[in-house]
C-alpha cells in the first residue's frame, strides 16, 4: 500500500485525550459493587519442599473472606498449558514443565505463590498474609547455567533426572570444511544476563461472575485476551460465549503480558465464581520482580571462521539458555537467538546448538527482543574482533558480508520460531549501513574526531552494528469493519494494545480504504465480546498481521459500498470513488451518497432483497502471512567513557531502520526511540542479580535501575522502506527493533572508547562497576563472575 491521505502520514493519536485526562480505563481502575481484594502469599525460598501451610489464623481474621491453598483447589489444580510447542526440528529434545496455580509439594523459585487471601480490602488481605504459617524445608538451589548441568546438581524437576529443559541443533552448510579453510578462527565466550520488563503498570486481574446471566467477565492486563478467554472457558467448564475477557488500556506490555496462564489469571475467575463476588488483584512492584516473567540469561561459546578478506565462511555457536523454573513458552526465545545470529549476513555454514536449562529463578518468556539481542550481540562482536585481527575497518567487514539487495527472497535454510523456514522477504542492508555511517559521521569520527579527543585526554568511541528482526509472524488476526448509519466507522480487532498506537494506525488503514476522515473510525481492540478470533500482540506483529486484517475487512466493505452505490446511482462500479465519507461518481461529485445514507439503505426494514444479500455495510476478514518478514536496521552511537569512574555518556545515537511501508512515521519513530531506551537499560543499567540461593538482590526500583530522562538521548532516525511482499500493506514489525542491537552497539562503542587499553567486552549488561572491573582487569584481573569491590551490581550468572 503506497502513501496516501492517511497511510504514511503523521496522524496524531486518537487515543491520547483519554489518556491525558485520566479517563482511560486501566485494569486497576475497574471498581465494582461488592468487590473483594486478593493478595498472594509467595515463597521466600527459591527451592524448598513444602511440608504444609496453616492458614487458620488468617481465615479467622475479621474482614477475610477466604484463604485458598493448593489442596483447596481440588481438581482445578493443574499445571498450565504449554503455550508454544517446539517446532519440528529433527533430534530436538524438549522437557515440558509448566507453572502451577499454587505450589503443592515443592517451590521452585522465589515468589511462587503458596496461598491466596481474599478480603474486604487490599490492606486487610495483606494483613492476613502475615497470619499464614508456612512450613518450607529449604533445598539447595541451582542458579547458574553451567552449575545446573553439573553432575549432582540439585534438580528443579526430579522427573527429568537433570536440569536439561531442551536441546536443539540446527545446521546448514559444512562448518568443518569452513573451519579448515579459514584464515582465522575468532572464538569467544559471551554472556548476556537477565533483566525485568518493568512495564510501569504492574499486572492485574479483575473477575466478576454475573449469576443473572451466567457470565464471567475478566479484566486482565494481558496481551492475549482471546486465548485467555478460550483457556478460561475450558478450565472452568464454561462455554466460550459465557466468558468475556477485556484487556482495556494496558500500561505497557513488553512481552511478559503475553505469558499465560499466570496463576492469578487462573485463580481469580475460579474464586469469583465460588464466592459470587467480584475480585480484584493488582500486582505490586515487589511481586512483579518475582512473579512476572523475565528474560535474557544466556552463555554462548561461539566462533567465526573468516577468510583473509573478511568474508564469513561459517559460524559455530553452542549456548546455554536459562528458562527459569518452568518452560511454558517453549523454545521461542532460544530459537530467536539461534536464528537472529545470522543477521543480514551471508553465512555459508552454520552450526548452532543450544541447551535450555531449568534454574530456581523466575520463569523466562519473551521480553522485547525475545532472544534476538543475544544473537545480534554474538555475531556483531565476532565481526568486530575479526575486523581487528584482520586489520579491517568495522564498517567494511560488514559491507563485505551483507546479503546483496538483489538476492531476495533469501533463505538461511534453518527453521524460525514460527515453524517456517527463515527466509528473508526483502531488505537493503548496504543502504542502511551507508546512511547510518553518513549520519553519525563515521569517517570523520575515526580519522579526526577520535584522535583529537584522545589527544585531549578524552575517551570517546563509536559503535555501529546491524540487525535483523524477524517480525509479523502468523498464525493470523482478524478484523470487522462496520459503517454505521451515522457515517462513522466501527473497527474491531482481537489483538490487545499496550500503547503502540493501534487506535490510530488501524484507523488510518481503514480510513484510507474507505475515504473517510480518520477521526470517524472508532477502534475497539482487546475485548472478546467485540471480536473473538485472534492470538495476541507479540513478535512485533500488530501492524503487520492485525493491520493487514483491518485492510482486508475495509476492502470488503468498500466492495459492498461500491456494489450497492452503483445500483442506487445507476452507474458502473468502476465509475465510483470514495471521498470525504461519500461515494460519488467520478467527475460528477454532486452525484453521490454519504456512507451513512448507504448504510441505512443496506439495512432495509421492509420490502425484499435479492436472496443472498448480506445486510449492512459490514465485513469481517482475516489475515495470516505465509511466514514472518524481516525488518532490519543499523544502530550507531558515540559514547564517552570517564576513565576514572567508568561512567558512560551516550553523546549521539543514530538509527536507520527498515520496517517496510510505514503507516505512521510518528508512531514508528517513537517505537524505535522507546526500544532504544529499553536497550540502553539492558546494556548499562538493568540487571537482575540473584545470589546463589536464588534470592533476587535488587527487587525494587531503588536497586534495579531503569534509565531515566538523563540517560537516554534523543535518537536521530532515518527510514528505509523495502516493502514486504508478504502482506498487502507492505509493512514489517517495529515494536522490538529499537531494543535489539543496542547492547552490541554499546559494547563496540565503549570498547572503541577504551581502545589501546586492552579492554574487550563480551558481556551485557555492563554497569559502571563492572566496566571499572574490566578496565582494571585489562591490567591484570577480572573474569566475568568476579565480585567487584564495593559494587553490588557486579555479578555473573553461571560462569
Amino acid at each position: 500500500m503506497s502513501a496516501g491521505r492517511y497511510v504514511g502520514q503523521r496522524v496524531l493519536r486518537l487515543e491520547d485525550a483519554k489518556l491525558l485526562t485520566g479517563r482511560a480505563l486501566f485494569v486497576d481502575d475497574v471498581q465494582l459493587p461488592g468487590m473483594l481484594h486478593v493478595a498472594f502469599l509467595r515463597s521466600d525460598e527459591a527451592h524448598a519442599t513444602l511440608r504444609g501451610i496453616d492458614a487458620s489464623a488468617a481465615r479467622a481474621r475479621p474482614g477475610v473472606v477466604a484463604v485458598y491453598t493448593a489442596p483447596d483447589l481440588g481438581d482445578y489444580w493443574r499445571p498450565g498449558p504449554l503455550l508454544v510447542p517446539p517446532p519440528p526440528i529433527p533430534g530436538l529434545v524438549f522437557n515440558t514443565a509448566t507453572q502451577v496455580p499454587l505450589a503443592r509439594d515443592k517451590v521452585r523459585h522465589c515468589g511462587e505463590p503458596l496461598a491466596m487471601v481474599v478480603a474486604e480490602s487490599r490492606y486487610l488481605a495483606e494483613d492476613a498474609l502475615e497470619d499464614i504459617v508456612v512450613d518450607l524445608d529449604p533445598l539447595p538451589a541451582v542458579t547458574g547455567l553451567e552449575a545446573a548441568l553439573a553432575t549432582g546438581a540439585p534438580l528443579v524437576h526430579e522427573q527429568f533426572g537433570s536440569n536439561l529443559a531442551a536441546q536443539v541443533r540446527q545446521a546448514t552448510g559444512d562448518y568443518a570444511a569452513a573451519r579448515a579453510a579459514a584464515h582465522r578462527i575468532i572464538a569467544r565466550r559471551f554472556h548476556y544476563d537477565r533483566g525485568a520488563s518493568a512495564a510501569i503498570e504492574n499486572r492485574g486481574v479483575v473477575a466478576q461472575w454475573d449469576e443473572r446471566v451466567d457470565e464471567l467477565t475478566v479484566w486482565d492486563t494481558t496481551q492475549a485476551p482471546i486465548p485467555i478467554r478460550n483457556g478460561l472457558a475450558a478450565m472452568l467448564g464454561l462455554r466460550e460465549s459465557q466468558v468475556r475477557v477485556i484487556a482495556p488500556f494496558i500500561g505497557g506490555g513488553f512481552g511478559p503480558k503475553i505469558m499465560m496462564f499466570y496463576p492469578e489469571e487462573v485463580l481469580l475467575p475460579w474464586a469469583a465464581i465460588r464466592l459470587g463476588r467480584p475480585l480484584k488483584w493488582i500486582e505490586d512492584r515487589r511481586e512483579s520482580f518475582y512473579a512476572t516473567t523475565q528474560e535474557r540469561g544466556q552463555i554462548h561459546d561461539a566462533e567465526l571462521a573468516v577468510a583473509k578478506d573478511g568474508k564469513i565462511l561459517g559460524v559455530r555457536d553452542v549456548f546455554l539458555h536459562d528458562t527459569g523454573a518452568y518452560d511454558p513458552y517453549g523454545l521461542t526465545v532460544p530459537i530467536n537467538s539461534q536464528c537472529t545470529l545470522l543477521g543480514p549476513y551471508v553465512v555459508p555454514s552454520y552450526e548452532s546448538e543450544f541447551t535450555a536449562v531449568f534454574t530456581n529463578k523466575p520463569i523466562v518468556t519473551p521480553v522485547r527482543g525475545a532472544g534476538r539481542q543475544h544473537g545480534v550481540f554474538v555475531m556483531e562482536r565476532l565481526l568486530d574482533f575479526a575486523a581487528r585481527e584482520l586489520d579491517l575497518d568495522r564498517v567494511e567487514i560488514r559491507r563485505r558480508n551483507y546479503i546483496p539487495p538483489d538476492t531476495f527472497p533469501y533463505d538461511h535454510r534453518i527453521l524460525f520460531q514460527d515453524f517456517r523456514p527463515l527466509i528473508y522477504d526483502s531488505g537493503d542492508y548496504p543502504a542502511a549501513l551507508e546512511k547510518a555511517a553518513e549520519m553519525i559521521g563515521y569517517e570523520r569520527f575515526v580519522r579526526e574526531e577520535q584522535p583529537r579527543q584522545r589527544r585531549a585526554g578524552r575517551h570517546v568511541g563509536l559503535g555501529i552494528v546491524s540487525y535483523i528482526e524477524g517480525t509479523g509472524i502468523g498464525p493470523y488476526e482478524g478484523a470487522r469493519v462496520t459503517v454505521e448509519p451515522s457515517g462513522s466507522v466501527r473497527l474491531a480487532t482481537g489483538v490487545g494494545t499496550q500503547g503502540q498506537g493501534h487506535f490510530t494506525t488501524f484507523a488510518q488503514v481503514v480510513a484510507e480504504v474507505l475515504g473517510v476522515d480518520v477521526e470517524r473510525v472508532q477502534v475497539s481492540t482487546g475485548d472478546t465480546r467485540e471480536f473473538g478470533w485472534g492470538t495476541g500482540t507479540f513478535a512485533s506483529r500488530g501492524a503487520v498481521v492485525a493491520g493487514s486484517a483491518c485492510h482486508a475487512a475495509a476492502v470488503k466493505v468498500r466492495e459492498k459500498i461500491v456494489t450497492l452505490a452503483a445500483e442506487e446511482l445507476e452507474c458502473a462500479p468502476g465509475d465510483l470513488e470514495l471521498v470525504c465519507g461519500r461515494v460519488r461518481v467520478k467527475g460528477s461529485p454532486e452525484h453521490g451518497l454519504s456512507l451513512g445514507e448507504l448504510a441505512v439503505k443496506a439495512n432495509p426494514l421492509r420490502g425484499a432483497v435479492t436472496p443472498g444479500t448480506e445486510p449492512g455495510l459490514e465485513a469481517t476478514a482475516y489475515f495470516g502471512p505465509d511466514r514472518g518478514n524481516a525488518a532490519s536496521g543499523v544502530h550507531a552511537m558515540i559514547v564517552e567513557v570517564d576513565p576514572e569512574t567508568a561512567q558512560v555518556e551516550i553523546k549521539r545515537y543514530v538509527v536507520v531502520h527498515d520496517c517496510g511501508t510505514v503507516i505512521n512515521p510518528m508512531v514508528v519513530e517513537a517505537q524505535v526511540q522507546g526500544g532504544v531506551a529499553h536497550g540502553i537499560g539492558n546494556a548499562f543499567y538493568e540487571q537482575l542479580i540473584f545470589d546463589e540461593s536464588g534470592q533476587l538482590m535488587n527487587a525494587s526500583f531503588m536497586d534495579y535501575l531503569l534509565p531515566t530522562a538523563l540517560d537516554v538521548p534523543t535518537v536521530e532516525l532515518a527510514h528505509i522502506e523495502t516493502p514486504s511482499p508478504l502482506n498487502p500493506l507492505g509493512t514489517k514489525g517495529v515494536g522490538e527493533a529499537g531494543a535489539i542491537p543496542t547492547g552490541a552497539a554499546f559494547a563496540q562503542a565503549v570498547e572503541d572508547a577504551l581502545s589501546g587499553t586492552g579492554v574487550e567486552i563480551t558481556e551485557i549488561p555492563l554497569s559502571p562497576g563492572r566496566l571499572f572491573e574490566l578496565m582494571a582487569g585489562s591490567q591484570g584481573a577480572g573474569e566475568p563472575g568476579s565480585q567487584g569491590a564495593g559494587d553490588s551490581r557486579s555479578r555473573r550468572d553461571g560462569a
Partner: protein
Amino acid sequence: MTGQRTIGVTVNGTRHERAVEPRLLLSDFLRHDLGLTGTHVGCEHGVCGACTVLLDGEAVRSCLVFAVQADGRAVDTVEGLAVSGVLHPLQQAFHQAHALQCGFCTPGILMTLVPFLREHPHAGEREIREALSGNLCRCTGYANIVAAVERLVQGAGELGSWGAGELEGQGADAPRGAAT
C-alpha cells in the same frame, strides 16, 4: 491501626470529607475513596513517579503520603488539568508531540511538570530532563516528552502566561479554571 479519622481534603477544587484509616495512602484515597483513577500507582515506593499529584501546589508522590496528611489541604490531580473539556496547554503539547504511548506514567509526569514549568517557564533541555528524571517511562524513551515541554516553553508567548496562576495556592473555595 484500624481506627478511623475524619479528614477534609479539597481535590481539584471540590471539598471531600471522608472517614479513613490512618494508614490509608493518599494514592488509594484518591483512587478508591474518591474514584479519581487518573492518578496511577506504579511502584508504591516513591521511585517511578506515576502517582505524582500536587499537594498545596507542590508535586508529591501520593504513594508516600498518607491521606490523613492531606487533611485540610488542597490536592490537584490529572483530572483537574483540562477545564470544560479543553486540554491544558501541557496536555495539548503532549498530544502534539506524541509524548505518550501506553499513557500509564503520563498523569504523574504531567503533574510533575506543572509546578516545574510554573517555576521554570523558560527551561532548557537539560533542566527539563532533570525535572523528568524522577519519573520513569518505559515506552517513550523520553525524547518526545522533552520535545513536548520544549515546544510549550518556546511557544509560551503565544499561549500567554498559562503557567502563572494555574493550580497555584487554591484554597478550598477557589473555583476550577481560575487560571489566567
